[in-house]
């Protein structure tokens, strides 16, 4: 049976595409140049974020969390999805007014969130430093294991007939002369005829797009993380804690200067994952010990109690960054049959499932859940 759709990329976005397309009875061939999830999907944290603005992110996040709730029940292997909520710490008194405004706006979107006084936050987290100005509890946030999700989506897609083809790199595209519609994908090993192709290659999407003569404006934005030995519950009660200045860090410029925001998450088996940084330095995988120290110092600032806990591993990963911090979930108008699903920066885990679902709706000609002009590829043509 011939392949209908080739998916280029075996991260959470590509695996979601393969899964939802397979559910529609479409014959999928997923290509991954390394192993499944070997890019940002294995390198990130575990946060399913509800509150990232602007509106299109809020919509994608809400729809994606609903899909996570379904996937948690329908996938054959566990994905460690938990409705944990999260806490954003407001560090300084002068930040309180800014965050009240953000908070009110998010409430007006219908988000479940609660402002916390320092005393309320200390009651929830007895080990937090008293030198804080307050916090916000986001009740809609959840936690998931991104790698398990990627593996489970790909595995279940395979059970429905998809070909999951790892360690096979794309080297070119073929188009029909008549209408410039895509006809095949060339890899190091073979030629795969296809009616449609999805570029879901994360931070590597620019390079893959180039092979088709397509400019996908995605750059790698590096982040480093550390993981500790498992710690007992009680040292930190919440599973996800970050600083309320986190969004400023996300929104800071695209130059190579380092931006650091404290982000502490506790995995299902008790390990703490500590982050995080944003830096535009190409595909340099080295973990700079000074950058790492900077991250840990920020986490220690809020939880001095973790000083004695041991770090067992550190690593770096690459978020697919776009200039306007919005993803690209879009057909390519000049190339019939080519679709782009990438550019989620730090919230590809949150928005992975809905991205796969929306691309599936585009390819099968179904009505989209909501308009996607804000995340079209052609917005960059202006």
């Amino acid at each position, binding site marked *: 049976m011939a392949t209908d759709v080739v998916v280029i990329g075996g991260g959470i976005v590509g695996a979601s595409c393969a899964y939802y397309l397979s559910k529609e009875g479409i014959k999928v061939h997923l290509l991954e140049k390394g*192993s*499944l999830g070997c890019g940002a999907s294995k390198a990130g944290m575990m946060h399913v974020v509800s509150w990232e603005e602007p509106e299109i992110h809020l919509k994608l996040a809400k729809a994606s969390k609903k899909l996570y709730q379904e996937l948690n029940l329908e996938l054959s292997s566990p994905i460690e999805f938990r409705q944990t909520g999260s806490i954003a710490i407001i560090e300084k008194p002068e930040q309180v007014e800014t965050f009240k405004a953000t908070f009110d706006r998010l409430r007006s979107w219908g988000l479940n969130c609660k402002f916390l006084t320092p005393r309320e936050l200390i009651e929830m987290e007895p080990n937090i430093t008293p030198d804080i100005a307050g916090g916000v509890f986001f009740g809609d946030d959840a936690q998931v294991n991104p790698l398990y999700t990627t593996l489970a989506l790909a595995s279940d897609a395979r059970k429905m007939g998809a070909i*999951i083809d*790892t360690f096979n790199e794309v080297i070119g595209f073929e188009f029909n002369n008549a209408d410039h519609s895509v006809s095949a994908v060339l890899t190091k090993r073979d030629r795969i005829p296809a009616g449609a192709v999805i570029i879901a290659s994360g931070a590597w999407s620019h390079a893959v797009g180039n092979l088709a003569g397509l400019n996908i404006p995605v750059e790698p934005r590096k982040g480093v993380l*550390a993981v500790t030995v498992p710690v007992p519950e009680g040292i930190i009660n919440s599973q996800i804690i970050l600083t309320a200045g986190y969004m400023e860090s996300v929104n800071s410029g695209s130059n190579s200067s380092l931006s650091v925001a404290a982000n502490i998450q506790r995995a299902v088996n008790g390990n703490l994952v500590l982050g995080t940084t944003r830096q535009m330095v190409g595909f340099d995988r080295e973990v700079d010990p*000074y950058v790492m120290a900077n991250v840990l*110092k920020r986490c220690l600032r809020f939880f001095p109690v973790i000083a*004695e806990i041991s770090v067992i591993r550190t690593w770096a990963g690459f978020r697919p960054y776009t200039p306007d911090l919005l993803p690209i979930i879009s057909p390519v108008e000049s190339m019939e049959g080519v679709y782009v699903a990438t550019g989620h920066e730090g919230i590809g885990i949150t928005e992975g499932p809905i991205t796969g679902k929306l691309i599936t709706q585009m390819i099968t000609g179904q009505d989209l859940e909501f308009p996607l002009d804000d995340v079209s590829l052609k917005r960059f043509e202006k």
Partner: protein
Amino acid sequence: MKETNKDKASCDLDVAQDDWDQIVCRCEEVTKGEIIKAINDGATTIEEIKRKTRAGMGLCQSKTCFRAIQRILAEVSGQPVAAVLPYTSRPPVRPISIGILSSLMEEEDD
């Protein structure tokens, strides 16, 4: 999770199964049977075995179990032991406390 005999039978591999309950990765308590199942399920590298089973992800970061996993993968996949690449090594080499790691940086406000 305990392997049942039924699970073992379904794996259909030409290797002895009497030692499948043996713990290979002591930090994360991963058995030989779980590692063979991961290979059977498509893992072709030590990194993929790690991601499927957590073997090698614990306190010792695979320093204890690496050679055992390497041998199992070589045996099951029929390649020479030397052809099985090791884990990607991630710093620090030994566990170090957050307090000490963070002090690598000079005191400064950020």
